[in-house]
């Protein structure tokens, strides 16, 4: 029967709880299975964990996902549970310290922005590999990893909107409007990515590949949530946004070519083809009006914006190295083997 509520049975919007990857994440998962208020792992545990490793990054990912779509069967009140937030703060301190250390000595804003505007004649990295020689299996792995972000594409950035004003805010929201489909549900970038996943025979359910994604991939997603959820890091979030929009267009062109070569399907190609032209526009708007507007309001944020750009490049490079080192030795880059392709739904 047809009604204003829609014609299809609703799919679950929340994600299944993934498995633990160590003491902190396993302890947190145990707590999340109980009503909010249950004891969570103490913040002291954060001191002993690798700040960029599986355990700490998964624990942080779990804390952050409570702000997005949550987990099936998990008490929604956990989102603002004081003990969970105390643990999250300890994890974030370790993470932020590692990011500062990894990007120590990054140049000033003008120099970091200039650097990402230059296209290498003979580039190396994941998008070049996939364009020239990658296999369909590797492309499926890549999409499974990236689904942790692309199925909520542009959501982490929305947190910064109330912290902007005037020119920066208007331009930022215009770009987000484009990311969210410009008023057309079928053009929402997250929906375009779900269609890409179906072309590749992957399951587009939210959170489906959280268990499969590497620590390096979790770092790239957690970076956006960290920057987005802290007003004090609004400059870094804007820097991150500028870095992503600036590097996305040429990268997407290579990935669209990879999809064509692999005959992955029309939706798989379209996702990246759309990003070639969309992000060529977004890059201009973000650099001129978002960064320009924010600096006009708060010139002291230049350093933070530069940190955001540098941190984005640093975490993306780490993720690229992780993928390529797996593929060069004939291994899977995922923690869990993918099911063989299901017929595109």
């Amino acid at each position, binding site marked *: 029967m047809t009604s204003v509520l829609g014609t299809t049975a609703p799919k679950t919007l929340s994600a299944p709880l993934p498995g633990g990857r160590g003491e902190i994440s396993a302890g947190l998962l145990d707590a999340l299975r109980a009503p909010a208020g249950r004891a969570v792992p103490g913040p002291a545990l954060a001191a002993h964990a690798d700040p960029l490793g599986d355990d700490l990054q998964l624990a942080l990912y779990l804390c952050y996902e409570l702000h997005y779509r949550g987990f099936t069967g998990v008490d929604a009140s956990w989102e603002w549970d004081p003990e969970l937030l105390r643990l999250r703060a300890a994890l974030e301190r370790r993470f932020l310290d590692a990011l500062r250390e990894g990007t120590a000595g990054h140049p000033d804003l003008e120099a970091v922005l200039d650097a990402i*505007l*230059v*296209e*290498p*004649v*003979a580039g190396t990295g994941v998008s070049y590999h996939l364009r020239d020689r990658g296999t369909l299996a590797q492309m499926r792995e890549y999409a499974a990893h990236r689904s942790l972000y692309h199925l909520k594409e542009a959501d982490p950035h929305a947190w910064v909107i109330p912290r902007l004003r005037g020119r920066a805010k208007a331009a930022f929201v*215009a770009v987000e*409007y*484009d990311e969210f489909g*410009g008023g057309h549900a079928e053009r929402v970038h997250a929906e375009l990515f779900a269609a890409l996943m179906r072309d590749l025979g992957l399951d587009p359910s939210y959170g489906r590949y959280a268990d499969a994604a590497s620590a390096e991939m979790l770092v790239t997603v957690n970076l956006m949530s960290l920057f987005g959820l802290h007003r004090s890091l609004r400059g870094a979030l804007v820097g991150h946004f500028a870095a992503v929009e600036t590097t996305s*267009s*040429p990268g997407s*062109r290579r990935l669209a070519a990879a999809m064509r070569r692999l005959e992955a399907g029309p939706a798989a190609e379209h996702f990246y*083809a759309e990003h*070639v*032209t*969309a992000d*060529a*526009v977004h*890059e*201009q*708007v973000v650099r*001129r009006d978002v960064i320009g507007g924010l600096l006009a309001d708060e010139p002291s944020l230049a350093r933070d914006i530069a940190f955001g750009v540098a941190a984005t490049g640093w975490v993306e490079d780490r993720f690229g190295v992780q993928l390529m080192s797996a593929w060069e030795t004939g291994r899977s880059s995922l923690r869990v083997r993918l099911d063989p392709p299901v017929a595109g739904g």
Partner: protein
Amino acid sequence: MVLTGDGPLLVEGPVELTLDDGTVVTSDRFTVAICTCRRSRTYPWCDTSHRRRSRS
């Protein structure tokens, strides 16, 4: 409209553009970046082909 100097012409969307062969193309993006370097593979829309290239 904004001329970016080294890059595309930025025009507020939606845009309907007639190409030199008479073809009409449209874009309903909030801002449209029109290629001025003639190198775009998605001509007339900018695909960032105007960027400087380095050998490093």
